């Protein structure tokens, strides 16, 4: 496909460091491409850097966050532009849906006022037209009696309705990229499914690219074509959504699958991943997942694995290749629309994944 030649968004070696008491390395070198119109999942647990990494794309992080690397959106380097220029990117080209619709709407302004303001800012149209457009959008996102509800304040909306309104605001300026940061986490399950459907509709209508951030593999399953799994500030696995579910090739992804509660097997206790994610304030030595990993080998504790294709990863494991030869063989693959299944593991699990409770050695 021709769009694949020129990705919509290109992130290279993105690093986010928070200057707290010590330096907290939230994102430690993340690279990926997003093509026009594709929907991609970014999965990881709390603190894996998935939100920080995504918000860093439009530099919406607190002042004490240091960014490095490059972010190219539609050919423009967002790390180099001024704050003023970024403002015309935010909203207009990149829309964001936040996790908690209870705190991401301004409590003192009506939904209509907030929505109209967004429309007017980006389209420069009159108040009347903007109001009609606001009512139309609210209707599109499935708020009943949209015209009347424009006069409501956020607290008069239910959680699901609020998130619909937030989505209406995010898509109002027709952004090219929609970042949905755990958009359904704060809502109950029935509403979750509806909103995911809505996100899919909204993005397919204008071929909007969507980066769906979540800690829930189930959320990703029906919505995205491919998935990137993050752990401790890096992408550790990238593949099609299907492969992540059937041929997970990073022990962390496998462990996530194993920890999903199962209905067909009687479990006395839920399966968890033993141990804690590494402290992001400490420097990482070796693979950050190694201390919790069931298929750990010696190399894991010494050297952090790069993202590799699966065949390279296996041969590297079998023949103990050093980093330069891996790099030479693979050409430093970047997760993108056409990239093969990638893993950052010195000892990738074999397939099919056996869904068993892991036994601590």
């Amino acid at each position, binding site marked *: 496909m021709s769009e694949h030649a020129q990705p919509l968004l290109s992130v290279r070696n993105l690093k986010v460091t928070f200057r707290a008491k010590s330096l907290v390395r939230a994102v430690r070198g993340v690279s990926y491409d997003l093509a026009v119109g594709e929907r991609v999942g970014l999965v990881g647990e709390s603190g894996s850097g998935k939100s920080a990494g995504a918000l860093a794309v*439009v530099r*919406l992080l607190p*002042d004490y966050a240091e960014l490095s690397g490059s972010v190219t959106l539609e050919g423009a380097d967002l790390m180099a532009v001024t704050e*003023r220029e970024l*403002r*015309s*990117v*935010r*909203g*207009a080209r*990149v*829309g*964001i849906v*936040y996790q*908690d619709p*209870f*705190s*991401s*709407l*301004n*409590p*003192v*302004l*009506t939904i*209509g*006022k907030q929505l109209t*303001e*967004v429309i007017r*800012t*980006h389209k420069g149209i009159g*108040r009347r037209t903007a109001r009609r457009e606001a009512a139309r959008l609210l209707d599109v996102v499935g708020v009943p009696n949209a015209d009347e509800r424009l*006069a*409501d*304040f*956020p*607290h*008069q909306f239910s959680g699901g309705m609020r998130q619909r309104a*937030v989505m209406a*605001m*995010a898509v109002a*300026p027709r952004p090219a990229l929609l970042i949905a940061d755990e958009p359904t986490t704060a809502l109950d399950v029935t509403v979750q499914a509806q909103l995911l459907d809505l996100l899919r509709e909204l993005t397919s209508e204008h071929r909007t690219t969507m980066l769906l951030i979540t800690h829930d593999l189930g959320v990703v399953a029906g919505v995205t074509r491919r998935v990137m799994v993050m752990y401790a500030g890096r992408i550790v696995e990238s593949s099609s959504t299907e492969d992540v579910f059937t041929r997970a090739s990073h022990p962390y992804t496998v462990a996530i699958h194993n920890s999903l509660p199962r209905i067909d097997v009687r479990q006395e206790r839920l399966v968890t991943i033993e141990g804690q994610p590494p402290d992001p304030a400490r420097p990482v030595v070796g693979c950050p997942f190694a201390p919790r990993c069931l298929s750990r080998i010696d190399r894991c504790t010494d050297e952090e694995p790069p993202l590799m294709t699966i065949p390279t990863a296996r041969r590297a494991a079998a023949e103990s290749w050093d980093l330069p030869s891996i790099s030479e063989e693979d050409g430093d693959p970047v997760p993108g629309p056409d990239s093969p299944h990638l893993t950052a593991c010195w000892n990738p699990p074999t397939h099919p994944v056996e869904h068993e409770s892991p036994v601590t050695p």
Partner: protein
Amino acid sequence: MTAGRRRRLEGAVAPARLGAAVDSLRPRTFLEGYGVAVILVMVAAIAAAPLIAPDPLAQDLTSPLAGPSTENWLGTDNLGRDLWSRILYGGRVSLVIGVFVLLTAGAVGVLYGAVSGYAGGMIDAIMMRIVDIFLSFPSIMLALLISAALGPTIRNAIIAIAAAWWPVYARLIRGQVMAVKEREFVTASRALGAGPVRNLFSTVLPNSFGVMKTIFVLDIGYAILAGSTLSFLGLGVSLPTPEWGVMIREALQYPTHWWFILSPGLALLLFVSAINFAGGIVTRSVHEVPGR
């Protein structure tokens, strides 16, 4: 013009919210009811002064310092002027001072504090040190100094008191703005492309007024007191103008004629205490009107 006004109305108050707001403004305790009643009666009387009272400046040297009578309900002062009338007209001056001090000090303080809190960093540090300098003087001292320098007129009294008071509002709003600007909907508004000016004035500031509303209402009383204090000390309002503080000062020379000093003193006490009692309603409504 009209467009701007309509826009404000559109965003201001939806019917349901108005209902909730009115409901929360209903007095619930005896003292609140008393405060509201006193304020309403006094303001009505002050407003209707020309209809229900004679000329406050008309002297009748034949009957100075007369006690209360059917002709002069509260008696007369040392120049035979009707005290009832002077109380009402004096109330006008006091109210004007109170309201304009708040508007001036409030506007300056809010703007200053909002910019300081939103900007943060060095700008905030410098702006707040200036506020500290103002606050290091007792406010009545500062008002006295400024008033003495400018001369005794109502306008100057307003300027003097406002100049002493705005730093309090500036500091208050700054704290609120700093807290509100960290909330998610502010980032969300930035994510939608809002620049700093719009972000501050349409997102952060409207959410920062909670505490301010309460203090503002209570401060009307204190502003009136401060105005009277200045006049009492001879620096607020110049002499022929009736004003409660001026009247108390005049009455001090005639301690045996109790009605002379009692009227302005009581008027001041009644009004300021009523505002304090009624202030509780505003405090409650700030907490009760929905929206976080």
